[in-house]
């Protein structure tokens, strides 16, 4: 039977697969960029800035995946409304905003990346709201726990 625990475990597995993919991609960045230059998706003169930006994106992506993993682990252990989770959400939100910078550089040489830039910024904004909600919930829970 499908339940909350299995759902969390599945999300955790997906996060770890994404982290493994992120790590593996680090070794093939030049080849991937060359492939897209060959296809004409990325302008050839932007090879080095795009490679550098993709590396930065992958590192930020790794940080996001690490924080997601920790967050999911806490949720799995029923530690949901705790200040550490608020910190993770804050970190993920800022990382999404930070992702916009390398995406902007890539957009100069590959216009379709503009949508990823937009998606990243929008995701950062949504997470900021979720972070604020959880932050308030932590305060309410704390007050409730310390009401005798």
């Amino acid at each position, binding site marked *: 039977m499908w339940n909350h625990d299995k759902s969390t475990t599945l999300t955790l597995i997906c996060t770890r697969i994404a982290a493994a993919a992120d790590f593996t991609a680090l070794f093939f960045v030049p080849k991937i960029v060359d492939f897209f230059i060959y296809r004409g998706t990325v302008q050839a003169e932007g090879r080095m800035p795009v490679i550098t930006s993709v590396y930065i994106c992958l590192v930020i992506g790794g940080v996001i995946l690490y924080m997601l993993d920790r967050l999911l682990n806490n949720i799995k252990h029923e530690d949901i409304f705790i200040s550490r989770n608020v910190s993770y959400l804050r970190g993920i939100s800022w990382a999404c905003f930070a992702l916009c910078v390398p995406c902007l550089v890539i957009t100069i040489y590959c216009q379709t990346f503009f949508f990823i830039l937009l998606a990243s910024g929008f995701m950062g904004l949504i997470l900021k709201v979720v972070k604020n909600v959880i932050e308030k919930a932590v305060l309410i829970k704390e*007050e409730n726990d310390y*009401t*005798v």
Partner: protein
Amino acid sequence: MGKIVVNLDVVMAQRKISAGALAEKVGITPANLSILKNNKAKAIRFSTLEELCRILECQPGDILEYKE
């Protein structure tokens, strides 16, 4: 900024009642009584305060005090 201080331990000492016995009579857990005694509580329910006052035969002002 001032704060509310709980003088429960003083009243308990005057009435010679232990924490365990008071918690049982009031109907709260010893852990919650400890939170109250150690001034870690964020709020106190009227029902809890009423029970404390009834068992300790005192006024709310004997238990709670405002300090600058």
